[in-house]
């Protein structure tokens, strides 16, 4: 034999490891194939479930997830990166939009919001999707912690009137818990700005062609 002991040993371990890698990867490939469609479905279902919290499923009949568009960063939305917009239709009629917004002046940084607004400029629902507020203090804006966020439903720029879009402590129409007013203040401000944004771009949203959806 011309091979050294080291080379022989190397070939042996190399082969064994190769076989194990082959079997392992094949197993993974198989599982991945089997689960991929299910995973995609559950991810979409999850997203839709979230959107449906701010926009009742009954108010549209299009494939809402497929209607997603990117909005450019805008001060009114508090965004510094493109954010998502979904346009709900019943038939060919635009009935509402769902958009992402950010309240940048939370007690501890950004508060990410998902806001549903119907075509009349009325809020259909608001959810906080990410925040860093003090647990137990500012985190009651989270629907999982309290129903506080529900009070936005049905509100519009005229109801209450613009100057009452404030927390109660500042003489506005929205409650806030004692000792923690910064967080709700930020949320109220952000929702109002989002409504302003919607009002400004309403025409464009309504006119948006549903062409993209067909493709999807």
């Amino acid at each position, binding site marked *: 034999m011309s091979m050294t002991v080291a080379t022989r040993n190397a070939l042996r*371990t190399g082969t*064994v*490891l190769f076989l194990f890698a082959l079997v392992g990867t094949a197993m993974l490939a198989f599982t991945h194939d089997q689960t991929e469609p299910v995973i995609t479905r559950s991810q979409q*279902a999850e997203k839709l479930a979230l959107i449906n919290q701010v926009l009742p499923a009954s108010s549209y009949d299009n494939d809402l997830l497929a209607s997603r568009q990117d909005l450019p960063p805008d001060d009114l939305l508090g965004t510094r990166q493109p954010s998502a917009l979904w346009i709900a239709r019943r038939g060919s009629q635009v009935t509402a939009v769902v958009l992402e917004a950010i309240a940048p002046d939370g007690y501890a940084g950004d508060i990410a919001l998902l806001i549903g607004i119907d075509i009349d400029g009325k809020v259909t629902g608001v959810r906080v999707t990410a925040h860093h507020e003090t647990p*137990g203090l500012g985190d009651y804006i989270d629907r999982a912690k309290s129903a506080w966020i529900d009070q936005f439903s049905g509100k519009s720029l005229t109801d209450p009137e613009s100057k009452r879009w404030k927390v109660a402590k500042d003489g506005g129409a929205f409650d806030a818990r004692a000792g923690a007013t910064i967080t709700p203040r930020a949320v109220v401000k952000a929702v109002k700005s989002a409504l302003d944004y919607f009002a400004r771009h309403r025409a464009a949203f309504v006119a948006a062609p549903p062409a993209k959806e067909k493709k999807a």
Partner: protein
Amino acid sequence: MMTMSEFRSLFHNGLIKQNTGLVQLLGLCPLLAISNNVVNALSLGLATTMVMAASSGAVSSVRHFVPNEIRIPVFVLIIAALVTVIDLAMNAFVHPLYLVLGIFIPLITTNCIVLARADAFAAKNHPLHSVVDAISMGLGLTLVLIVLGAIRELAGKGTLLSGIDMVFGQAAKGWVLHILPHYQGFLLAILPPGAFIALGLLIAANNWNKARAVQRVRAAVPMAT
């Protein structure tokens, strides 16, 4: 095949004597991070047990074919493959729970308990023994996780089993136990420091119990000399 006493000693070893959470203090990262309520704790515990049983069985079955030099890479490969399979399966079939357990499922790969048992036990023992050992170790960990989760959930929120709907669907929402109604909540218990404090107390209780047992034995058997 294994006798009843072997079986019992393996379980005693896994649940009490060599308990991973309280005695060996292995795999603390997921243990501490996930134990903020019972449901999370139970789920991760069971997932880890599953991975351990499968990987120990696999490792033990192939132990004669693996050269010593590459045993660690092979074991890691087996464990990683199994974990990824479970990860994908959970993502597909219990998606909400997957969202909560999140990164901790892939991390089971690097959980030292899994590799430790594979290397220390499964690599030297019969597959049946190895699987039993892995299950007992996993259950030992699950037990600690549940106790820790229960302590933290109860102290932190006054409830038990909150979030069970993520495992069993909406129907399970009513199963949540509100043990302490109108409880103010003790946030620290749910936050990471609470995990350390609660685990510390558990370990202390375990050690105290052991010390007492030793004392009892000493008291029962008068010194020979």
